[in-house]
């Protein structure tokens, strides 16, 4: 008797917990509302979707989580029963996996792009009396020994992009390049923040070369504190022949509540209105060619005319093997 009462009570507790949780998951499909899934660092300016809501009467809720890789892992598991309607920000290193697991309804569209390149600290190189590197081969020169810090390709997105740049550049001979790079005492750290903010000379580290983005110099200017003098050059530069191009895509998720409305949102994401906001909030280039670049990009971001790139399919097929080979050379 006592046991069964306790049993019933514990069932009641379970039931109440479920009710409590369900009551709070307010997600009614009746209102004109779309959910846009994106990675954590998707931070367009406040009010970026007001124009869309004004035009269509549809409210946009942004749902964030993790980085692009985590987002794709989650989207693959929930393909067909997605957490939102539209997903922003799958890049070409993950796009093929998303397609293979039928995450999207139809083909995703490109929304922005950016380049991962070796950056250098202009003042630190000048102090050492060394010229800036330009190409991947330059990095093997003994004058750059113990000067470069890169991110772990197995855990970091720019780290992987830099590995892919070398694979695109050297083909099957890439392991040979990496043997030499390691011999030149390159430092491998966990993540971009770790490389940039603890090992890069500009922030107190001892490495004047770092794998970062082609848009890091304009960010350095915009966020300089104290502000930089008018017309002063950017404090960091980019080795323009070391770049790998990352293109990001957005698409309608298979199983979205309303595919027609979702298409309107995709149209808005590539519209001039929205694309204009991208450079100085996400520090990427707009895919929409009608958008005029802001002055900071024109002045401080170098034009990367011939970035390295690889087909998304090749990346998906070979990623595990490449990363294992790379780990054997670089980490052990």
């Amino acid at each position: 008797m006592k046991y069964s009462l306790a049993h019933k009570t514990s069932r009641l507790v379970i039931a109440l917990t479920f009710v409590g949780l369900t009551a709070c998951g307010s997600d009614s499909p009746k209102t004109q509302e779309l959910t846009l899934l994106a990675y954590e660092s998707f931070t367009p300016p406040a009010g970026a979707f007001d124009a869309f809501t004004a035009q269509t009467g549809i409210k946009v809720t942004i749902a964030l989580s993790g980085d692009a890789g985590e987002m794709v892992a989650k989207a693959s598991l929930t393909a067909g029963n997605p957490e939102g309607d539209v997903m922003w920000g799958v890049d070409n290193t993950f796009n093929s996996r998303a397609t293979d697991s039928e995450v999207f309804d139809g083909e995703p569209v490109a929304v922005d792009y950016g380049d991962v390149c070796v950056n250098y600290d202009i003042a630190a190189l000048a102090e050492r009396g060394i010229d800036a590197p330009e190409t991947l081969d330059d990095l093997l020169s003994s004058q750059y020994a113990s000067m470069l810090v890169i991110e772990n390709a197995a855990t970091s997105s720019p780290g992987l992009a830099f590995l892919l740049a070398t694979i695109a550049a050297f083909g099957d001979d890439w392991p040979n390049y990496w043997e030499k790079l390691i011999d030149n005492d390159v430092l491998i750290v966990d993540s971009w923040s770790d490389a940039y903010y603890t090992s890069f000379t500009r922030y107190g580290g001892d490495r004047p070369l770092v794998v970062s983005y082609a848009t890091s110099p304009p960010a350095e200017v915009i966020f300089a504190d104290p502000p930089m003098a008018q017309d002063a050059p950017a404090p960091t530069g980019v080795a323009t022949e070391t770049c790998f191009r990352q293109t990001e895509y957005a698409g309608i998720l298979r199983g979205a509540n309303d595919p027609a409305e979702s298409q309107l949102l995709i149209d808005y994401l590539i519209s001039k209105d929205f694309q204009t906001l991208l450079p100085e909030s996400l520090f990427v280039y707009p895919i929409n060619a009608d958008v005029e670049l802001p002055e900071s990009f024109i002045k401080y971001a170098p034009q990367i005319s011939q970035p390295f790139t690889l087909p998304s399919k090749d990346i998906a097929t070979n990623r595990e093997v490449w990363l294992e080979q790379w780990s054997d050379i670089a980490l052990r």
Partner: protein
Amino acid sequence: MSKFWTRLASAPALVVVAVSTAIPLVAISVQHIASVDIFAVWQRPGVAEALFFSLWQGVLSTVLTLAFGLFPTWVLARYQFTGRSILVALVTVPFVLPTIAVGAAFLAVLPTSLHRTIWAILLAHIFFNISVVVRTVGPLWRSVDQGLIESAQTLGASPAQVYRHLLLPIARPAIISAGSLIFVMCFTSYGIIRILGGPGLATLDIEIYRRAVQLGDISGATVLGITQTLCIAGAFAWWSRSQGAQFSKIGDRNSARALSRSSRIIVFLTATAFTAPLGALIFSSLHTRDAWSLTGWKVVFGLQDIRGLDIDLPSSLATSLLYALAATAIAVPVGMAATAFARRHWIHTAVLLPLSTSPVVLGLAILITYDRAPFDFRSSRLLIPLVHAAIALPFVMRATIAMGNVIPPDLRHAAETLGASPWRRWLNIDLPLLRPAVATGVAFSLAMSLGEFGATSFLTRRHSSTLPISIANLFSRAGDIPRSTGMAAATLLIFVTGLLVISIDRRSYS
């Protein structure tokens, strides 16, 4: 009667563990483990090494943390001195440090030769987990009657003998409790190892992340995730077989004593070790490459808008506090109820489940389990506080059980003889004596929730981000202002936690 209460009181804790972790883990195992992977995944490069590394560094970190932690624990428990509560708060706050801030702060004070070595990891693990020792063992030692120690000394016992034959046996259950938690924390260590250990060292948790996210191998990641959970449960079950002695001598808690010379040295060393990294953090929040600047702090408090930096920090702080309060409101009553009546070991092993599960596997498991109406609460607002509460639960329970052991059985028996119901007995006798344990539970729940990153980041949020996530976001931008703002936000997180901990301790120890 007592059996009924026992079952009822531990039910909420089991519900929290079941809903947040156990049910999702079963669901993901059933749906996503390909049977070939159970053995095959271990053949992949790096996997077996990761398990081995997790184990040995976990054991070593635990032993070292206990060895170094017992000194400040003794001094903080037995002596009354100015700044005591600040020092207690100081050793608690590392819990909430975001990993990139740890990286910056820790690397700033460590000699370069130790950067990216196993030593950096061990030191950081001691730094992070010492508060578990201070807060689990401390209240027990605090309650030891000074007369007992003095009579031992009168009888000719040396300090070492007093320690070995009196203090150590008294503290043994608490030391075992603290050790098991520290082992779980270090075995599953993620951020510290990634940043301080360098890329060559990987724990099982890191390997799980790599498989799930980089390689898209959900089956392999789940196999490893389940193995990790079982490993920890096994280690813990074996560990907790060694039962601690019951002790029943409640002392005068306010036996305030002035610091002796050796204890002064311990206070000084502890204060220095914990102030230095925090000092480095504060410095970087106020100093850009070549100038002093308050910009970071202005941005944190919403006093200055920076073009291109649309991260709403005041609202992140509010969200973090809200989640922390909600998680504490769940974890403390639920955990204390479970320990008040249930002394069975399997419950203590069960509540370790959420803490010992890889955040990635947990996140994926929750995602696929609660994805259909009426249970579609993948993006419910309550989900994150619930997960935080589940992670904090073992800390609350361990603090309570360690203190519960010092409640004199004759007090309980007397109450029983006088006809008090178990509830009344618990309310009037146990609860007042457990006040330091409640404080510890609250402090740990708040700190755990305020600092939690892995699971929070992996779960989808439709509302404002928490502060640790906004900090990570700031540190993903290049430039002086994102960096100093990130440092300022990390400092703020530490101060908020520290203030909460100090105010809780004041109330409970007075």
